[in-house]
Structures are given as C-alpha cells and as structure tokens.
C-alpha cells in the first residue's frame, strides 16, 4: 500500500469489454499480462474505471495508456504518441462516459502529470453487447504488444528526436501499420528529460 511507484511504469488499458472493438485496450493489456515484462512494470485493466483511475496518475512516474480511438484511420491501425494536448486523447464515446480525455484533464488539475505515452488502436465503431473484436482490430493485438514492449525496453519517448521542436503544436507520432517504416529509432531513442 505504501510502496513508492514513482519509478515504475504502468501499462493501463482502458475500454469497455462489452462493446466489441471499444474494448481493444482491455484485450491488449490482458495479452501483455501473459508476456515477459521488464522489472518495475505493472499492468492494469482499467476498464471503464473513470475517476477511480485518478490515483494512478498520482502514483506512477510513467504511464502507457492503451485505448481505442475513433480517428478515421483504417481499423487496426496502431498509433503511438506522446500527447501534448487534451485533444490528442480519444473522446468519450457516449454522453455518459468519463472518457480518457476527461480523466487526464482532471488529473492535470489535481497536480503534475506523469509521463504519458498513448497507444491507440483505430476502430470504426463500437459494437453493442459484444465481447469479440472485429478481425481487423483483433489483428492489431500483436503489434500493440510489440509497441508497448519496445517502449518498455527503451524506456524512452518513441517520438520527437532530440532537438526537434515538434512543429507548431503538432503532435509527433509513429504509426505502426502492416507496412513497417524504418525501425532506425527503435531502442536507441534518447530519453526525454
């Protein structure tokens, strides 16, 4: 209960397991739990936890969030980014949910945020009353695992090489799709602060 987690990394999956592809974040972390993970890594199924998850943002020094995103990209596209603005987070899918964006904004009001990396899987829609993933989204799970493991092993930011200003507020992202781009930055990325 009192152990410091500031030097640990939390892999936090968010989503609704009952809403088909919307639950991909949960499927992803369950898969990761079965993998060999570096020390000081914890994995949490955050479900639709909402404000219950606020304490995670205070306790951990680094969080890797995994969630579905309705971003118009082909379903199954895996995107890794360091969010800079609230708009970088997926919005809630219903008027009732406390979405990731609300959660992060609330956490930012309560105190300094940990380092956050966001791994999203693009989906076309949420399916009601369904615990299965669509084939395109299901096929992304190995790539999600690979992306998260590479983040954990490198322990560094996946984006914005040293010296890059990142553009005028644009977010830096590395898209991991079926056609992989150059992997030159893997594992060698300089740590950001």
């Amino acid at each position, binding site marked *: 209960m009192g152990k410091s987690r500031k030097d640990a990394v939390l892999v936090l999956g968010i989503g609704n397991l009952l809403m088909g592809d919307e639950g991909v974040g949960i499927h992803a972390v369950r898969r990761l739990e079965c993998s060999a993970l570096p020390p000081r890594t914890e994995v949490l199924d955050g479900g639709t936890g909402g*404000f*219950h998850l606020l304490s995670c943002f205070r306790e951990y020094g680094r969080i890797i969030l995994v969630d579905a995103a*309705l971003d118009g990209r082909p379903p199954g596209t895996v995107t890794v980014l360091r969010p800079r*603005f609230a708009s970088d987070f997926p919005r809630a*899918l*219903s*008027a*009732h949910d406390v979405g990731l964006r609300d959660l992060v*904004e609330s956490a930012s009001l309560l105190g300094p945020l940990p380092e956050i990396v966001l791994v999203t899987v693009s989906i076309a829609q949420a399916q009601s009353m369904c615990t299965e993933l669509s084939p395109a989204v299901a096929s992304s799970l190995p790539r999600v695992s690979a992306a998260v493991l590479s983040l954990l092993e490198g322990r560094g930011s996946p984006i914005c090489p040293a010296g890059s200003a990142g553009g005028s507020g644009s977010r830096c992202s590395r898209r991991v799709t079926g056609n992989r781009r150059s992997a030159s930055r893997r594992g060698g990325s300089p740590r950001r602060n």
Partner: protein
Amino acid sequence: MASRIVIDPVTRIEGHLRVEIEVRDGAVVDAYSSGTMVRGLEIILKGRDPRDAWVFAQRTCGVCTTVHALASVRTVEDALGIAVPPNAELIRNLMMCAQYMQDHVVHFYHLHALDWVDILGAVKADPQSASALAQKISDWPLSSAAYFAGIRKRLQTFIDSGQLGIFANGYWGHQAYRLPPEANLLFAAHYLEALAWQKEVVKIHSIFGGKNPHPDYLVGGVPCAINLDEANCLNAQRLAYVGTLLDEARNFVERVYLPDVLALASYYKEWCGFGGGLSNYMAYGDLPVRGYGDPSGFRFPRGIVLERNLGELLPIDGRDAAQVQEQVARSWYRYSDGDEGSRHPWEGQTELAYTGPNPPYEHLDVAGKYSWIKTPRWKGRPMEVGPLARILVAYAAGSTDVREAVHEALQRLGLPLESLYSTIGRTLARALETRLIARWAQEFYRDLRDNIARGDVSTFNGARWDPATWPPEARGVGMSEAPRGALAHWIVIRDQKIANYQLVVPSTWNASPRDSRGQMSAYEAALIGTPVADPEKPLEVLRTIHSFDPCIACAVHLYDERGRSLHRCTIM
C-alpha cells in the same frame, strides 16, 4: 408569447433526462420532465432465483451503487421472513453511510456547484481574500493565500490551453452568478479537493463487499466473514481501516462540505424563494438501530408530511394496495386494463409501449405520453422524496438530532423554517443530513466493534437459504432511503422463482410525468416560477433540477459515436 425551451440532455446528472419548459415574461410557466431511456430491469428479473435478484437490481445504477442491492435483499427477506443478524444490519448501515457521504459530496461539488460557481471567475480572485474567506467559514487547514494562489495558477494554465475540457459548455459569465471572485476560487479549490477525496470513503465498500461500485450483498446477511486474526476475513486491520476512513470522511464533511454549503446559501438567499414545488414529502426511513423490523428505531424516521404540516406525521404501509400505486397515463407503457388505471406494485406491469416521436425530433407530445418514467402516487397524491423529505419527516417525527441541525443552520443564516421549501433548502438539507450521517456512521462502527469484542461474529442467517423451506408463493416489499430518496422494491415469488418484480425508485417519484389527473410530480412543480434571464442559457432551471440530484440511470444513448447529437436544443 411563451417560448418553449428544450434542455436535452440535462448534463451533470446521472442518466438521461430531457426537460421542456415554457417561459413567459422571464419565468417558467409550464414544465415537462422526460426520462428518455428504459432498460426493462423488471423484465430481466422475471423468472430468476430471488437470491440472485440483488445482483441484477444493483446494476440499475453505478452512481447510487449499493442502494438497489439493499432494497432487493430486504424485499426477498421480507417475503421469506428472514431476520438478519445485528452485525449484518450494522455493516449494511456502514455501507449505506459511506455511499451517502461520497454521493452527496460528489453531487454538490461535481454536479451541482457549477450552477452557482463561475469557474472562469475564480481566476480573477485575489488569493489573500480567498484565504480570509476560507478561514472565516472553517478551520480546514488548506487555507493559506499561497495555496489559493497555486490553485488559481493551475486553473489559469488550464483555461489558457484554450480547451476548457471538463469545464466546457458552461454558462460562464451568466448574470445569475452572484459569488464574489474569492468565493469562486474557494469553491474551485474544494471542487478539486473533493475530486481527490471522494474515492477514499468508498473503500469501505471494498472492505465489506469486495469492490466499488457494486459491492456484494447477500440474502440473509452480508457476505463478509469476521475473524480478527484471519488474513482473509474482515480482520482487525481492515476493521481499523474502516474507522480511519470514517474519521477522514467526517472531517471532510464537517470542515469543507457543510461550511461551503452554508456559505453558498448566504450568497444566494433569494433562491430560498424558488424551487419549492410540491407540498408533500415522503420518507420510508432507514438506518435501523434495533433491526430493520423496528422502524421506530430508524435514524431517518418513516412517514409522510402532507401540505407542509410539520405537526403531523402519517404512517406508510408498503403492503397496502391503496397506498403506493403507479400510473402510466403519461408514460410509454401499456396496462392490460387500460392506461388510465393505477396499480400497486404487486400487481405491477411493465409492458413497454413507445408512442413518442422518432428521433430526431423537436418536441415531445407533452399533451399525451412523454416519458419512460412511470408516475407513482401515495393515495393519489404526488410526493417529493430525497434529503429535504427526510429532514422534514424527521423534523415532524421529533428527531432531536435533526431539529438541532436544522435550527442551528437556519439561525446562522438568519432564515426562517419556510426557507427549506426551496432549491437552496433542498441543497442545505442534503448537507445537513450528510453531517448527521458522518456521526451516525461512527456510532454504528463502534457498535460493530463492541459486538465483535463480545464474541458475536455472526453475519448471516441461513435458516431460509434453501428454497425447500419457502412457501409456494410469497410476497415481499423492501424499503430503503437511497441518497436521492425513498426507494422500494416489490417481489412476488412463485415456485421458487421471481414471478413479478417492481422497482419504484426516488427519481420515479420526483422526475415522473403528470398523473391521470394532471397533477405534476416534483421536478415539474419545482420549476414553475423559476426565473429565466436568458432562454439560450437556462442556468436557473439547472439549479433547481440539480438540487434534486437526478438519477435516471443510463441505457439508450443520445449521441452517436462521433458526438453528433441525435436531438437538438432548440428554442421556438
């Protein structure tokens, strides 16, 4: 000419509510409250094992978690003649108290406060003035000028980012906001503190019931074994932690929440003149001290006040077919013997019959049926339920705790008793009962510890667990006071399965449409006369609606996945 305003969805509530109002000469002259969703829990429960009912029923709502589980187990226990052991009563009370404290605090700060507090006005405040105000109203230690300067800076950074996030779409700058800047900053700071605090007290649910939301309950008792020395039971360490959590909760309630509500009331005294609505108040009562079978020992007494007559308290009998009844005259249901009728819940029917417009639509047919909420009545009369009803019923019952709390608060504010019949009165009642509950919870805790010290560790009565011990048919009613008001379930058990199950929840009483005689329920009645300075920003309407703490419970969503609204707010 009257203008018709639609507020849909009403935000900062639980569930899906639509309000249509007619405004003339700057005030509400007519109002229609519509529950825009249905799930059919009563249909889902049919045919199931009564011992499982609480699991399904509790899923009615995750915000007011525990309340339906409690009503459900009491309903089945009533039907089967089961008395639960004293420790189980105490643990149920503690879980309920924890729920109240979290629920009411969250409601005030995160759902209601922004109707009164202009968050954008907070950044204009002088931290020194905020500090002086804080120290005037309470001895809560987080009150230095440096502290408030830090809060102001965080808010400013948030606002400067250009995206208001959780504060988006507010009516900031509305003329009806009356707080000086330092009060805005004080409340903003406490909004954030409450956000951090609220997850603590519900750990009590996890200790007794395994998790929150939706801790476990049990027909016949509570599903926690007590053994002070065992690792996997309710042991000394966990019991001590409950005590700590209760102390912290009482601390927050007494030194932050209640002083803030009193301060708010002092700035908004004119709102003691709006939002009263109905004159009848009903409480089933709860928090037994001598067992659920003895309502005379309830901390919240049971009874009815009619026509605001606090000199007389009328009794309630949930089994009496002539008392509690439900109507569907203006609700989207069909009764087999005609929709103008009234049915006691044991004869209740839930046949969905939607006759409303297909979305997208401009207006509901408010001359006909316009809601998924049935209309309950007690002997044909509409009732307000909730904190105000509980306080008034307790007052009428002569409860010294309650009378003292009411008198002290009103004296401090310089307000008469009649001021309770209002939006501010309802808000104040909620805070007053929370403070009482914080104290009562510590007494229940002490009683539990005393029992255990005497060697009583029983938490379950299994005498009627086996269906072979049940009669072929049994009827039960289980009553409770949820944070939002009087809650009851009715069950008919036949051949060991649920033959009929009806839930009549607080927001059924308060948010329902008119009855067959055209009488309004609480929300609609309370809105009449509410000022509306700007029809495009009906902030004043929200103040009163939120004072009821609506809990409609979610099902159908009003937005599609991309946030496109399926209904539009329009003004005729």
